[in-house]
């Protein structure tokens, strides 16, 4: 499974909802080598016409699907499926089995932060972002 000799130059997007697709589009426009994976083929409709990467349909909790999507040669992986547990699992696999240099994950439950502590996994918490933004706009209108 491990192959450190491979050139790590790919950007892997796991979960292509609104966020995943937007990031995939942006990465493409930056000229990155993008691989997008989702179990639902319809999700790829969110990719723009200019998207020039590859798409893979499959269950990301199955390692063979991630392997097909070149996880072993990923420079960065962005995990944005709708299920926190799937996101955590993929992040762990990316860190402990394939040692992907940059791992970004979306987690709905901020309590999950404790589970990725010390693993060099960068997390986004939509709850915290919304809460901060709410406080900001309310504070602004006072």
């Amino acid at each position: 499974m491990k192959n450190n000799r491979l050139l790590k130059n790919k950007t892997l997007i796991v979960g292509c909802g609104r966020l995943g697709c937007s990031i995939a589009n942006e990465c493409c426009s930056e000229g990155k080598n993008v691989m997008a994976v989702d179990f639902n083929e319809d999700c790829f409709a969110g990719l723009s016409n200019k998207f020039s990467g590859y798409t893979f349909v499959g269950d990301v909790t199955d390692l063979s699907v991630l392997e097909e999507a070149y996880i072993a040669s990923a420079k960065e992986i962005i995990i944005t499926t709708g299920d926190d547990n799937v996101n955590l699992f993929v992040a762990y696999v990316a860190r402990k089995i394939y040692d992907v240099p940059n791992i970004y994950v979306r987690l709905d439950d901020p309590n999950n932060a404790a589970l990725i502590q010390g693993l060099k996994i960068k997390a986004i918490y939509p709850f915290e972002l919304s809460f901060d933004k709410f406080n900001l706009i309310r504070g602004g209108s006072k």
Partner: protein
Amino acid sequence: MKIVICGGNHAADFIIKTFKGHQHQLIVINSSREAARYLTKVNQIPVFHGDYWRKYVLEDAHVEGADIFVALGYKDCDNFVACLSAKKLFGVKKCICIVNNPKNVDIFRELGVDSVISSTQMLAYSILSEASLENLIKAVSLEDDKIVMTEIIIKENYEIAHKKIMDISFPKTGNISCIYRQPNVIIPNGSTLILPKDKLAFVSTPQNQKEIINFIQRVRKN
């Protein structure tokens, strides 16, 4: 022992029944309301209803310091995160989880779950051992298939029948652990005589199993 049982329906029911009343403290959590109700009703014990992979549910159920944590849910990732939380946040000593996808057995182990069970994998091994051996041989795997215990019935025409163990130069890669000769169980030593119809049980590694079976089943030439 403090045992936490998460998820599962019939599997949870069976485990609760096995351990209930044996001076074990059972904590049962289920994410399905119907399953939680059913388990409470048939076993007369409190069942927490909640997502057992969430920190606050595990906190409410007081799983901290449990000896064994078992995750029996249908989704592999839910079980994985539950075991991870139990271990990392609540200092649970040992985690066991079941997986639907047999490929996850090795991966979950590598990611820190103590014991991973896949019924599909077990079925495959069982088919394999049934298919590769004759009917009169039974095999049991121990220690994650690193050791096998094989049971074999001695026939009249085998070379080793009517001989003492010290005279047959049994392969060094295995060990005869007991002989079942109705109605007795004999723990053999060098001078034990092997007789037809004996059930001979030996332990070995899976790699050497075939070689030893071939040795035992060698037919006398005369």
